[in-house]
């Protein structure tokens, strides 16, 4: 294990992973409470566009992820994600159109340069490949996210749980909804750096959903959520490091696989026992 703690890429992976797990754990609780998992998933998928565009333009993928995340959040809000009815259709249509654009950019990536690995890196991420210079940027971005969340904490919570009550009290519900989507966009850009765009919703939603099963009180759930995310990310880094000695290729299993697997198994451990006790209850909903 001395090799593990002595390795530079591991330090970077642990630091970047920790920052990401904490922010996404906190933001994720709101995503789950607001029933916006699809939007979170879509924003993550859509930042594929930013990632592939950044690859093409040869800039740091992080800024591609962030820029596109904010723009798309705006487009989704415009299309009418704020109405519960029709929300998932609007999300779906935006998602489809932008995925098409990403397909085109990735196609240019693979034809204009010889880096055929672009598709895989953008989609599935590689924490060991994160450059040390990206860590301060990620920390700064995460700090901005947490501060912004703390700033709007009470109105956001109220408008998530009781939208009508919030607007009756003069909370600008739509502005907050838009701001929150941008915040989710920034958060999934961070998680995209860690586990890739396709898997980043796992880190956003998994720990939060598990935590909300354990406690209904938002601050407690946020703490649980960040904790679960942190454990999953660090275990993922350690297991992925160890897996360089495993079959079949001795090339290491992907870090994102371990993180997602741990997150999903944790969720199952909390969810399935309850489900088995009352198999027909949820349908009554």
């Amino acid at each position: 294990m001395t090799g593990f703690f002595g390795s530079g890429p591991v330090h970077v992976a642990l630091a970047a992973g920790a920052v990401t797990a904490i922010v996404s754990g906190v933001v994720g609780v709101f995503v789950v409470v607001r029933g916006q998992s699809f939007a979170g998933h879509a924003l993550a998928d859509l930042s594929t566009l930013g990632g592939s565009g950044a690859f093409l333009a040869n800039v740091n993928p992080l800024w591609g992820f962030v820029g596109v995340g904010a723009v798309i959040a705006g487009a989704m809000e415009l299309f009418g994600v704020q109405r519960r009815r029709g929300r998932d259709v609007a999300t779906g249509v935006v998602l489809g159109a932008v995925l098409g654009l990403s397909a085109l950019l990735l196609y240019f990536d693979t034809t204009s340069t010889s880096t055929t690995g672009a598709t895989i890196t953008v989609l599935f991420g590689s924490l060991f490949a994160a450059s040390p210079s990206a860590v301060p940027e990620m920390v700064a971005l995460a700090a901005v996210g947490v501060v912004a969340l703390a700033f709007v904490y009470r109105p956001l919570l109220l408008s998530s749980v009781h939208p009508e009550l919030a607007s009756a009290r003069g909370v600008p519900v739509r502005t907050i909804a838009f701001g929150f989507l941008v915040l989710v966009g920034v958060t999934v850009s961070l998680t995209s750096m860690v586990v890739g765009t396709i898997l980043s919703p796992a880190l956003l939603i998994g720990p939060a959903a598990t935590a909300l099963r354990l406690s209904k009180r938002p601050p407690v759930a946020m703490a649980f959520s960040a904790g679960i995310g942190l454990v999953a990310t660090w275990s993922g880094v350690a297991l992925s490091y160890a897996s360089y000695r495993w079959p079949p290729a001795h090339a290491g299993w992907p870090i994102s696989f371990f993180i997602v697997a741990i997150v999903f198994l944790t969720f199952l451990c909390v969810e399935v026992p309850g489900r088995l006790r009352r198999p027909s209850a949820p349908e009554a909903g």
Partner: protein
Amino acid sequence: MFSGVMANAWAVGTIVGVVSGVVGFFVVLRGASFVAHAVPLSSFAGAAGANLVGADPVLGLAVFAPVAALSIGWLGSRRRRDVVTALVVAAMLGLGALFLSWSTQYSAAVYGLLFGDILGVSDGQLWLTAGLAMAGLVAVALIYRPLLLSSVAPDAAAARGVRIGLVDMLFLVLVALITTMSVPVVGALLMFTLMVGPPAAARSVSRAPAQTMALAVVVALATVWASIAASYLSTWPIGFFVGVIAAAFYLAGRAWSALRR
């Protein structure tokens, strides 16, 4: 543009257009866009796994699509399904990433499965797609009334003795079935675009179920045909055209209904 390999592309595109219009109508009606997105994406892991052991990718799709659909159905109730859907799709894709990392030759094949490769459709694939499409359409015809009723008015359907849970599961299996047949052609990421965009456009201009469904099929066919032609002429990926054209139809539908009001 209409000979050889392209003949298969047009035939398969037409089949996919018809079926995704019909099933997509129910996807939009039930607010199941996320599930329609998640099942194809999850089945991608199956294709990656089949690729690894040297089996036909369709076999992998046929195993993973129903597994994903049924675990979403079992773990999440219909009203609060989004969290479970997000997690199941992530878990499946995690497996997909693992399979990919084990296999040595991935980039081109993966890209094809994610974003579609309509020019590589073989005769065998064409017949398989046609068979699965027939099965899907027959299934829709058989459960048409209970499915429609439980989508529009679940409470009334339950009161009339429709088994909502069962119909819901059948619907998920249906989505899995047409996923298996379409992913090798239009790709996992954009399969759902065809199931959501055209029916949503149709629904914004028409309310009568049969009429909306027919319109959805027409719009889906127009989208697919225009995309194949554009993809052939430009050599750009078909997924790009499907996504953009479907969104354009949706916008046009919304604009049209806004102008009429």
